[in-house]
């Protein structure tokens, strides 16, 4: 079953087309990663799906509601969590949750129950009486998530939910997101972190206002643009990765070279011998060792695809 169905969605601002004929579906219970460079049209797309902005053409339904004709029902049935902390800093955790429950029509005991439930879900009970402005970044994001969940929406939009928080808080937030997804909620997440993208069931990649690909992380890595026929991808350890990278880039056999952690990832014709590469590195004074075959990372996918697209589009 699809929670989101998008058909030819387009939004123009004057001459500029921010979202250009985008179509895709999001399945119930999935974590959908919506990726793309800054300014590619992600936010405009989310704004339309949340009923904030009317599309210039095309249609979409969210939880079965038409985003134009039934925008009020759409709003009632979604949660929204923004990258910037956007709750009230001068109100306490509990007051913020009471307020957001209230504007979704919750009253009395029902409100108290839901508040208690989300407070425990994100584990923020010990801070219930603290001012939201005094919380650290990670706790602020948990509070935002709790506020987005209080009316029990089946679908939650998370716009860069982990931007600017520390790695531990980031991991914990993702654990929460997995928990939500396993309880049947659908998560629509934007992120620039590749490790987060790896965790999504489905990925949509938007580039220059167009949705250029969609699939599972595994499917994306097998795309011909990422793994061209008759090529292979190897990882080489080296003590001086940066000079090694520059040296390898100029080699005729290098289709693509990049650094992943402190290893060189090299895409090259599959008839190139590993020894040829090691010799070239030796010669450049940056010896390599410990060569092995690797899968492309999602970063490889996006970098290669973006490069390919930039080449095709003038």
């Amino acid at each position: 079953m699809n929670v989101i169905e998008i058909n030819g969605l387009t939004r123009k601002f004057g001459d500029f087309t921010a979202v250009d004929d985008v179509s895709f579906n999001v399945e119930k219970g999935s974590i959908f990663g919506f990726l793309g460079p800054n300014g590619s049209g992600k936010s405009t797309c989310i704004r339309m799906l949340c009923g904030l902005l009317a599309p210039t053409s095309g249609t979409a339904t969210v939880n079965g509601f038409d985003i134009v004709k039934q925008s009020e029902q759409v709003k009632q049935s979604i949660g929204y969590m923004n990258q910037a902390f956007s709750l009230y800093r001068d109100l306490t955790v509990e007051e913020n949750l009471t307020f957001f429950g209230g504007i979704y029509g919750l009253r009395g005991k029902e409100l108290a129950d839901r508040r208690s439930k989300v407070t425990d879900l994100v584990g923020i009970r010990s801070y219930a009486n603290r001012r939201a402005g005094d919380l650290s970044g990670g706790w602020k994001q948990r509070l935002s998530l709790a506020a987005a969940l209080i009316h029990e929406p089946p679908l939650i939009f998370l716009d860069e939910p982990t931007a600017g928080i520390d790695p531990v808080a980031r991991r914990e937030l993702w654990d929460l997101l997995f928990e939500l997804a396993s309880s049947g909620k659908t998560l629509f997440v934007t992120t620039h972190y590749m490790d987060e993208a790896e965790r999504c069931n489905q990925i949509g990649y938007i580039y220059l206002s167009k949705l250029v690909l969609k699939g599972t992380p595994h499917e994306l890595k097998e795309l011909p643009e990422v793994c061209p026929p008759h090529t292979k991808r190897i990882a080489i350890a080296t003590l001086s990765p940066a000079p090694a990278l520059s040296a390898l880039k100029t080699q005729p056999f290098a289709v693509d070279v990049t650094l992943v952690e402190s290893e060189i990832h090299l895409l090259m014709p599959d008839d190139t011998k590993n020894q040829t590469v090691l010799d070239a590195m030796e010669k450049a004074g940056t010896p390599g060792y410990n060569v092995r075959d690797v899968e492309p990372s999602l970063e490889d996918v996006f970098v290669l695809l973006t490069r390919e697209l930039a080449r095709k589009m003038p």
Partner: protein
Amino acid sequence: MNSMYGFQSIALKEFLHLRRDVTTLVIALAIPVIQLILFGYAIDFDIRHIRTMIVDTDRSPASRQFIDNLRTTDYLQIVSEAHNPMEAEDALRRGDVRVAVIIPPDFGRISGSPFGNRPQVKVMIDGSDSQVALRARMAFVRPATSGAEAGVDVRFNIMYNPDMRTATFMIPGLIGVILQLVTVALTSFSLVREREQGSLEQLMVSPVGRLGLMIGKLVPYACLALIEVVMVLTLGRLVFDVHVAGSVALLFLLSIPFVVATLSLGLLISTVAKTQAAALQFTILITLPSILMSGFIFPRDTMPGCLYLLTFLLPVTYYIEILRGIVVRGAGFFDVWPSLAALLVIDCVLIAVATARFRKTLV
């Protein structure tokens, strides 16, 4: 380290900010021009054209001669005529006229009599604005020198503020002006702050209605403003001995539409202003001229035509009318209802425009 270190870069950077921030630049340049023009025209200590009513119960050639002589003075402007003194009193209490001249039925007979008796004319003056009242009296001094009227015995009756105290006149006006300043600033900040901290977007994705958001923002500040009304009135009484001649309950009730108007004006500002600093500038831009033009200090009647018409657009104009009516002249509901009607119209227009503008400014 030299404490002037970096001066050039800072100054240059500030110039760049100024050039980019068009709102600030326009307001900074527009305020002096607008204020100069307004101050220049609106501040006119030479009060003329005081609205005057004539009650001529005599209708003799002598009374007409007397009225014609009054017409020639610049101070008075005869705007209406009535048949009995009761009507004059009503018009004064409503604030329609400031002066009423009542000519007795025996005016012509006495002035024409050979016994040298002087006919009496009763002049009722609204003393709530002492400057206006003083000028009005002068109007009757001048014709006395011109022969024909030398024999008229003018009896002045200063109504409402017989001592012609400035405080009685100023305090009610101050209430209006202070309230406006505070309330416009209160709401103009509130929405801009939500936008700046990002919570506005969070609200927009929720089912909160636009009107619900607007009215919800108005009510708490309106309560605060009404507390201020009570505070200022109490202070006016305790410190400046200004008593409310009319009904305090009515005054309180009629304060509500005014406060709603100024708070809505604040909301309208916050749909235009992008930052809290800009909101503050807009607030100054709007409240400063209205202090001058509302009749708070300078009588509106003496303002040149287009400025006078502008005063009708300001909510505080009507509120000051209401305040002076109830506090000084003891006016009742039926005396001030036109001002109330005007405020209600302004309320509806401001809320409608602010609500309509609101959606556009978000995206």
